[in-house]
């Protein structure tokens, strides 16, 4: 490194607003903050375990020696034809009403639930973001028509539509995915539209226009990256909603048809047996609860990490305590923390509002 280069860098350091050793992207910073959030990390671990549980369902079936649809009339049922409890005859979580292994069925159910949850969220997000951007950016008549369409989709009684569809067609995975996707995108669209309305007035959008950028380029290259934060939070929070939605539809018998297991239809079957077979209700419900809770907590964590200014309602006192502690420490911050603090401060301009403030 030459002396002039050193001098040049020294002058740059003097001019630099933050201790910027290297350009960290928004996402790198978000990840750094997320990493220090124990609840969010625990949620990620739980979600990964749940996904592994779903992926490894055939392995579990193989290890237990119980295929998913195999009905164990002799070992899997009591003399009265009722399900056997956990641990009996090698059924770790017991059996269901026709003597199938509950653990294996919950594992296979996780496949359906997570697949439906993730796929419908992806569809709803892509659809919602695209339509929201179009409505917000173009405005005028297009916005008027689309915004009424969002309202209509949000106001629609989804159970009624699902019931109608299920009675016209036979219940199927495709209908479940269609119905859930259709009822999820409008909420995302509304938020994206609102954000787009404010973002499109920014000077950098005008700068892009003066360079000759077209509307699609502005929407997807200039506006969308500024929306990804709130959209990511929303999408994370939509996954558990979609999982529950699927369970609801399956519970009502208009979702995933038998004999394919889903958490919803296992619970539906279990309603007739809960007074004699507690495990039949508790374990699938627990799987559902753990999954939705983990996604919700992760969503909260991501929101906090993306925008450190917002305080979580219940964690408010903790955040304030941390702030006080940091102030008391004063110069006691490590260099690493100082960098993070400096950059957090810098990030406060231009970062979009969190989704929660908009909705």
């Amino acid at each position, binding site marked *: 490194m030459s002396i002039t280069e050193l001098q*040049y*860098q020294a002058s*740059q350091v003097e*001019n*630099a*607003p*933050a201790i*910027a050793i*290297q*350009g*960290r*992207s*928004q996402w790198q910073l978000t990840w750094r903050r997320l990493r220090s959030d124990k609840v969010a990390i625990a949620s990620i671990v739980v979600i990964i375990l749940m996904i592994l549980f779903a992926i490894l369902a055939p392995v579990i079936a193989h290890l237990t020696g119980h295929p998913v649809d195999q009905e164990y009339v002799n070992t899997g049922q009591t003399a009265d034809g009722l399900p056997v409890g956990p641990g009996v005859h090698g059924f770790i979580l017991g059996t269901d009403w026709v003597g199938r292994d509950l653990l294996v069925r919950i594992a296979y159910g996780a496949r359906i639930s997570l697949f439906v949850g993730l796929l419908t969220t992806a569809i709803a997000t892509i659809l919602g973001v695209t339509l929201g951007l179009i409505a917000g950016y173009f405005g005028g008549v297009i916005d008027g028509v689309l915004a009424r369409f969002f309202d209509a989709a949000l106001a629609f009684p989804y159970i009624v539509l699902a019931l109608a569809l299920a009675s016209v067609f036979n219940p199927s995975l495709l209908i479940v995915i269609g119905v859930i996707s259709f009822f999820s995108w409008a909420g995302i669209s509304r938020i994206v539209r609102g954000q787009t309305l404010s973002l499109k007035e*920014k*000077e*950098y959008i*005008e*700068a*892009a*226009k*003066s*360079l*000759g*950028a*077209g509307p699609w*380029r502005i929407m997807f290259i*200039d506006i969308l*990256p*500024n929306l*990804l934060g709130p959209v990511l939070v929303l999408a994370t929070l939509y996954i558990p909603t979609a999982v529950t939605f699927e369970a609801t539809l399956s519970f009502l018998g208009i979702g995933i048809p038998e004999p394919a297991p889903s958490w919803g239809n296992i619970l539906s079957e279990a309603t007739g047996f809960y007074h004699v077979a507690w495990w039949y209700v508790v374990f699938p419900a627990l799987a559902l609860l753990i999954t939705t809770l983990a996604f919700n907590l992760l969503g909260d964590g991501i929101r906090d990490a993306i925008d450190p200014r917002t305080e979580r309602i219940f964690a408010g006192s903790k955040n304030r305590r941390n702030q006080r502690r940091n102030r008391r420490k004063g110069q006691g911050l490590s260099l690493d923390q100082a960098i993070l603090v400096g*950059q957090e401060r*810098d*990030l406060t*301009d*231009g*970062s979009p509002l969190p989704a929660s403030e908009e909705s």
Partner: protein
Amino acid sequence: MTGSLTTSTDSAFPSDHTFGDDVLVRVDNLVKYFPVKGSGLLARSVTNVQAVDGVSLTIKRGKTLGLVGETGCGKSTLARCIAGLIPITDGKVYFEGQDITNLSRQQMRPYRREIQMIFQDPYGALNPRRRVGSIIGEPFAIHKTASGNARKRAVQDLMERVGLNPEHYNRFPAEFSGGQRQRIGVARALALRPKLIICDEPVSALDVSIQAQVLNLLADLQDDFGLSYLFIAHDLEVVRHVSNSVTVMYLGRVAEAGPGDQVYDHPRHPYSAALLSAAPAADPDSAAQRQRIILTGDVPSPINPPSGCRFHPRCPKAQDLCAQAEPHLEPKAGDPSTHLTACHFPVEAGEDLARAGRREQR
């Protein structure tokens, strides 16, 4: 410098001979109204904000035209009209003799490369989520002039040219100071080697030491690339420093236009004189001698501008005629033909407007 600006009030049919080779942009009687929607069920847009109302000006090749005036006088609107960012209500804009008024985006595309803008707010004009390299490289991406490594090299050359460290290619705007960000904005504007850069208050948001750096950079670039600037500011000293000629706007109209020294040393329009008297002087001796002309009242609403001369309600020299007849923008007695003033009773040399203003108040 003489003859670097011609301004006319007549919107005569411009024929090709009116465009000398040295004329880059000619704005002819430009009008921009923003409709104001009334409230109520059947309300139609009955009123207009007359942001720019009949402004004509000429920008010469390789020269700088300064545009000054109070906040809200239509400077920025005029700039956006010339840059083709907002549609024009009436009037014409010519670029190198070609009519570029209200072109479609596709038609405007070739001219986008020639006309670029530098914005006032160095924080707002850069997308916070994009790396500097991608911000400066955007013009190349949009016009598909360079890609991949060639684009990266071009961007780094530009960064070096405007005084940024090319190694900071991958940083985000938030990691730069205000002055550095404005340099990024300059680099982006420069990328396509435009002929005209419209500077919309490029240094207003910067502190004074940084202002000088950015102004010097702009001057260097003008010399190197033969750029023309339309330089908008409300800091009169900055405008005087950079401009060959100056146009003073008041409430959507041109009050006075001419070579910089003429307008600054011999202002003929009472508004220009008041504006100049209000500018702080660096020399305390001259500051002590200075007589400030205090204007009374507020800037009238551009929705319903005053009749006749728009400045008459606040003018210390106003007479009955001013409220009735609109003054033409023309050379006044004793002025060179390039120095135009729209005033019935122009300020004479040695006249004490400050005293006149005080008498008026009493």
